[in-house]
């Protein structure tokens, strides 16, 4: 089979892996070598679905011994199969890299013959790239669950990032959709990589020269909407992964209906809005100092479709607001809707030289449409008089809709996005906007 045909099949098979980041590694180029890593990562293109292309993302092979119901490469699925050789992967990577198409390689694989056999092939490929071809660009390698510990450890010395995909957030989901996989076989290699990373950090402190081990850290992926798990299950799991396994990233992928199976939900399209809300919450966990239990609880186990998680939190805790921008501390600034990390930092910087008023905040880049309900500037409040949970919430949602209206010029699409709005709020809306 031609490389072109293989690439077609094996890129197509890899596309549901969402990880694309190429950041976090500072690998340098050596004399006579090719490539280096860029700390903040570089995106090289954006495909037609709008997702960035940073790494050459391919499967080594899509021949698989497993038969997981949610997966496009399951053994019983009738689709064209192919397998690369290590040399083919190496040549593709180097030649794409030299033309600046890519930032590096993301190599994953279905389980061919046995986990060990597959892991061996992956190891061989990355070893060849690093040692024979002196490639110093970014490599992200999948650790194959069930593979031998030593194989995973050796691979970790060559690559920048490793990942093991959890895919299904609960044991229950795993039993229904991937009965051949065991939870332990997924968690075990994750734990192994984490402990090796820590050991390596320790070694670097002690010894002058110590080979690096997965310097850009570990990541994983969860499927959203293939099982009955609610958002709270997913988010608590992510929180635990960040805390206990010190993962760099948890990726979420909206379940795309690719197969029909009695245990799978039947939906027309991927739950993109839900995926988006979970990503927003993920950012709140990692950068904004939120805890999962603050964002969701047993009474509200799923995110609001109409309002982002931060706004929801602020509205539920309206008694904490408004806060004075010129005095409140950084941690609290971060919790104000409409103020992100950048604008919070800018506010802290700018207020060292002068007191900030409402206009200044606009210049700094605060989204006042949302922030105005929660702040005062020099003691002055610009929100609404009636500071109750439901009134503020309604105003925030109305703000979103007005913007959408101007952009799209189509009311119908908006209401299909926010169907829950129409019935209970019909009266209020006419009152507020006058024209609807």
């Amino acid at each position: 089979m031609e490389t072109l045909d293989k690439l077609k099949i094996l890129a197509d098979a890899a596309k549901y892996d969402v990880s694309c980041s190429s950041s976090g590694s500072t690998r340098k180029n050596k004399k006579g070598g090719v490539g280096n890593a860029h700390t903040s990562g570089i995106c090289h293109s954006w495909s037609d679905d709008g997702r960035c292309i940073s790494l050459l993302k391919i499967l080594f092979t899509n021949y698989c011994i497993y038969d997981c119901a949610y997966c496009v490469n399951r053994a019983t699925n009738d689709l064209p199969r192919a397998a690369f050789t290590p040399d083919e992967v190496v040549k593709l990577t180097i030649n794409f890299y030299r033309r600046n198409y890519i930032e590096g390689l993301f190599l994953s694989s279905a389980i061919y013959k046995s986990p060990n056999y597959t892991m061996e092939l992956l190891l061989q490929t990355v070893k060849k790239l690093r040692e024979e071809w002196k490639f110093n660009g970014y490599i992200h390698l999948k650790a194959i669950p069930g593979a031998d510990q030593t194989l995973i450890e050796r691979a970790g010395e060559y690559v920048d990032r490793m990942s093991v995909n959890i895919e299904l957030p609960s044991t229950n989901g795993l039993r229904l959709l991937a009965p051949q996989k065991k939870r332990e076989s997924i968690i075990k290699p994750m734990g192994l990589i984490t402990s090796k990373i820590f050991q390596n950090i320790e070694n670097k402190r002690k010894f002058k020269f110590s080979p690096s081990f997965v310097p850009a850290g570990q990541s994983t992926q969860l499927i959203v909407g293939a099982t009955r798990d609610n958002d709270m299950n997913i988010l608590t799991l992510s929180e635990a992964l960040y805390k206990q396994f010190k993962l760099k990233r948890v990726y979420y992928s909206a379940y795309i209906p690719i197969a029909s199976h009695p245990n799978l939900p039947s939906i027309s399209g991927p739950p993109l809005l839900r995926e988006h809300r979970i990503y927003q919450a993920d950012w709140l966990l990692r950068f904004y100092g939120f805890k999962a239990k603050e964002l969701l609880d047993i009474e509200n186990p799923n995110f609001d479709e109409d309002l982002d998680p931060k706004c929801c939190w602020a509205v539920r805790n309206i008694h904490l607001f408004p806060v004075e921008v010129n005095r409140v501390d950084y941690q609290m600034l971060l919790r104000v809707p409409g103020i992100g990390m950048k604008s919070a930092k800018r506010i802290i910087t700018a207020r060292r030289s002068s007191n900030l008023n409402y206009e200044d905040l606009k210049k700094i880049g605060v989204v006042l449409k949302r922030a105005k309900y929660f702040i005062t500037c020099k003691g002055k409040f610009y929100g609404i008089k009636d500071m109750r949970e439901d009134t503020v919430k309604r105003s925030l949602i109305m703000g979103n809709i007005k913007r959408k209206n101007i952009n799209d010029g189509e009311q119908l699409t908006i209401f299909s996005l926010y169907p829950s709005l129409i019935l209970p709020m019909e009266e209020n809306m006419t009152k507020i906007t006058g024209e609807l």
Partner: protein
Amino acid sequence: MLYYIYDGSFDGLLTCIYEAYYRKEIPEKIVSKEDYQGNLLSREIHIDTNDEKAKRVYDSIKNKISKQSLENVFYTYLAEIPDLEIWIYKYLKLGWKIGRSIDLNLTDDRVLKIHKTRLSVDRERHRMLGLIRFRLLDENIYYAPFEPQFNIVGLIAPHFAERLSDQNWIIHDVKRGIGAVYNKEEWIIRDIDLKKDMEYGDEEIRYQKLWKEYFKSIAIKNRINPRLQKSNMPMKYWRYLVEKN
């Protein structure tokens, strides 16, 4: 109305600032020769670029304000947006007044203008690190044409000198007729004037085809989103992208 007219170089701009200070004048506008169109009401002064005067301003910015400010000013200059010279002048005047804390005044219009422009230039620079596409020519040279909005070829060359250090390469800014040329040891910026169309060998065509195929296969059909794609990768850059042609 007092107009300073300079030759368009960075040193020329710094010389203008030097002259304004020592002649105790406040120019209304600082315009490059190319952009200047005569004006009946204006009094024009042609400023000759002087390396020594420029050097003194350069050092003064670095020492009396900050290295950061110097960088801000240089990036803003590279944006090549008309009327920005006078903003640079105003920004620097403020800088000499209040010193290195100038960049904390995020709500001052002069600072804001410079910071915003610098950010746009920086953003394009970073974007181009990814969007440049090299084509292998027969002479074993990797050639990358592009048309950036700002004059950033000198800002991206160091990145590739480190990354692709064992290749001969040329990054060609087609719009400005200049380019960075690297010979496995060092890079320089020079004028480039190419008449003929490039011809590529079989290998180059093969890899372009592979890349296009990859680009097509990696998109998820259920999630097609051209608006998102265009906002991340503006169409003005598509002309030189292998995968988009």
